[in-house]
């Protein structure tokens, strides 16, 4: 680990140099909002954002992605056989990812990189990616990263952490990927005394993040009792079962697999899917194990705040980015639900008279 200082007037040159060896993704403002895009030549990432509207998960995990191609044309020798299309897994960098979103990749990795199976699409893209974080000095009122095991200067999942200091960036180079990144950009002004500054900035920023989302008792709850808690109906009432919360979430990973055929040429693709949709769990027989809105809302929160906690022992499946809070059209608030779940006590069993 080492510290560098990057002057802002050297930044532009460095970013352009990076594009020679990396595909560079960064936040840009389009229409009204910031989102991560592949940056063309001459386009700089726009760091005047609090956080992007959509999470950067699509840079590794596109909303729609082709898994296989095939032909149904029986005159071809390989008809009906699945072939992986050529994919670009050359080095890419996400420039200006917030620490919460970077941590999210580490949580999602638990799903796609397991001892039994590896998802080659997600993992290849992930391994090709260098994540250059932008520390968060100005958190949103909906942020609760410090309650969710992350923080505005959290280094989890990052290769480099940048702190914006008006006329320069301070860079904390964390990994070998990070070293390769700064050397490709030609940034090499050492700033050995920056460490204390970083710590001070981190402490200041952490102080600004709204807290008070307790999650400490979730692991101790009994799953079936929590699932049967009486608050779910009230929590779910306003939900319209759209996919906004799950599609904006950096840690939601669920997907659907679909075949699409045009003429004799077809693809098997996957698309993001959402536990909010009834179709997500509908059986062929018509039976649906999560048939009601309450079932589905409960599934989302139980998955993030209980099942994940129990399965991996790595805290909650949430990094506190606040996107679902601020974008929910009906104001369902995970912070409120986390509180309800964490404080839940099952009603004492009645003695048989």
């Amino acid at each position: 680990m080492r510290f560098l200082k990057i002057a802002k007037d050297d930044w532009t040159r460095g970013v352009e140099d990076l594009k020679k060896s990396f595909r560079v993704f960064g936040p840009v403002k389009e229409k009204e909002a910031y989102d991560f895009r592949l940056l063309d030549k001459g386009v700089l990432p726009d760091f005047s954002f609090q956080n992007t509207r959509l999470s950067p998960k699509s840079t590794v995990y596109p909303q729609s992605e082709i898994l296989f191609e095939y032909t149904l044309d029986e005159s071809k020798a390989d008809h009906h056989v699945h072939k992986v299309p050529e994919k670009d897994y050359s080095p890419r960098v996400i420039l200006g990812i917030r620490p919460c979103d970077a941590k999210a990749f580490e949580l999602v990795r638990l799903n796609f990189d397991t001892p039994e199976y590896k998802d080659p699409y997600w993992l290849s893209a992930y391994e090709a990616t260098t994540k250059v974080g932008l520390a968060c000095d100005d958190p949103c009122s909906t942020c609760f990263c410090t309650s969710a095991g992350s923080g505005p200067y959290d280094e989890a999942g990052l290769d480099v952490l940048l702190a914006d200091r008006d006329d320069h960036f301070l860079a904390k180079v964390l990994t070998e990927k990070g070293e390769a990144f700064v050397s490709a950009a030609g940034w090499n002004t050492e700033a050995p005394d920056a460490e204390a500054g970083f710590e001070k900035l981190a402490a200041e920023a952490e102080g600004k993040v709204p807290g008070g989302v307790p999650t400490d008792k979730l692991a101790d709850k009994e799953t079936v009792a929590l699932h049967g808690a009486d608050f779910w109906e009230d929590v779910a009432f306003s939900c319209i079962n759209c996919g906004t919360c799950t599609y904006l979430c950096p840690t939601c990973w669920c997907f659907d697999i679909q075949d699409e055929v045009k003429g004799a040429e077809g693809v098997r693709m996957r698309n993001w899917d959402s536990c909010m949709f009834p179709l997500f769990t509908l059986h062929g027989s018509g039976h649906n194990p999560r048939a009601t809105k309450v079932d589905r809302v409960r599934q989302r929160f139980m998955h993030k705040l209980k099942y994940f906690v129990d399965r991996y022992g790595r805290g909650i499946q949430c990094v506190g980015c606040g996107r679902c809070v601020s974008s929910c059209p009906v104001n369902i608030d995970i912070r409120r639900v986390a509180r309800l779940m964490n404080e839940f006590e099952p009603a004492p069993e009645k003695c048989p008279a």
Partner: protein
Amino acid sequence: MENPYFPYPVRIDSAVIETEDRNLKTFKLVFVNPEDEKKFAYRPGQFAELSVTGKGEIPIGIASSPTEPGFLMFTVNKVGVVSTALHNMQEGDIMGVRGPLGNWYPWEILEQGKNVVIIGGGFAFTTLRSSIVYMLDPKNREKFGDIHVIYGARSPGMLLYRDELMEWEKRDDIHMHITVDGTDDPDWKYNVGFVPTITEQKAPKADADTYAIVCGPPVMIKFTQPVLDKLGYAHDHIIMSLENRMKCGIGMCGRCNIGMEYVCKDGPVFTLEQLNRTPREY
């Protein structure tokens, strides 16, 4: 990196209508590349994703037994897009198989001389057939104690694998209790009655060495469980195989969970004792 989404190409060797309503068809599949068969080493209770190129995939229990090399067998109910397309396919057509997926019945325990009571209903008899064939294999039979099979369907014509059922009826190393909900066939010489009722009459009493494997439609399971309770079966001796909507089959796509467990990867086989600790979202 192995691609767990890649289906092995297979050729349809035979496709036979199984039931009188013509909604169930049994497919024998042969690997196009013989070396794939070795990679597809499975145990009874596991399932696979059947892939119809251009339509999609469906998760189906493996009905053949690892003691039957050379082919895989699946019995498919016609309900959706993929199963309908599959029913329309012909012998010789190329499709895909992805797997084996999921866990299996607890053979590590059962093969220590345990008594096995198989309770099945309707078309959920596929992995049970696999299990019976596996247990009756001359190399395996001595590893098990008594074997009971209680299997019911709506009518005689809805029973799967009828020829084999009749063969097993003739054997003295397996106790068969075939039943139908009702029949007007005067020559029907087996039981008439619902599976839970027949279970109550025919299933052996519980003991530490007796395990029940229950597989069937939700209503059958709902009424069989109290019967097993009455017979004294401990919940960790009741083994069930679940179905949920699945896509990936490898615990990644997120839809088939019951609590923290994925039916596709951590299941489909669970003991009732395990299920008691999860929300009943199946």
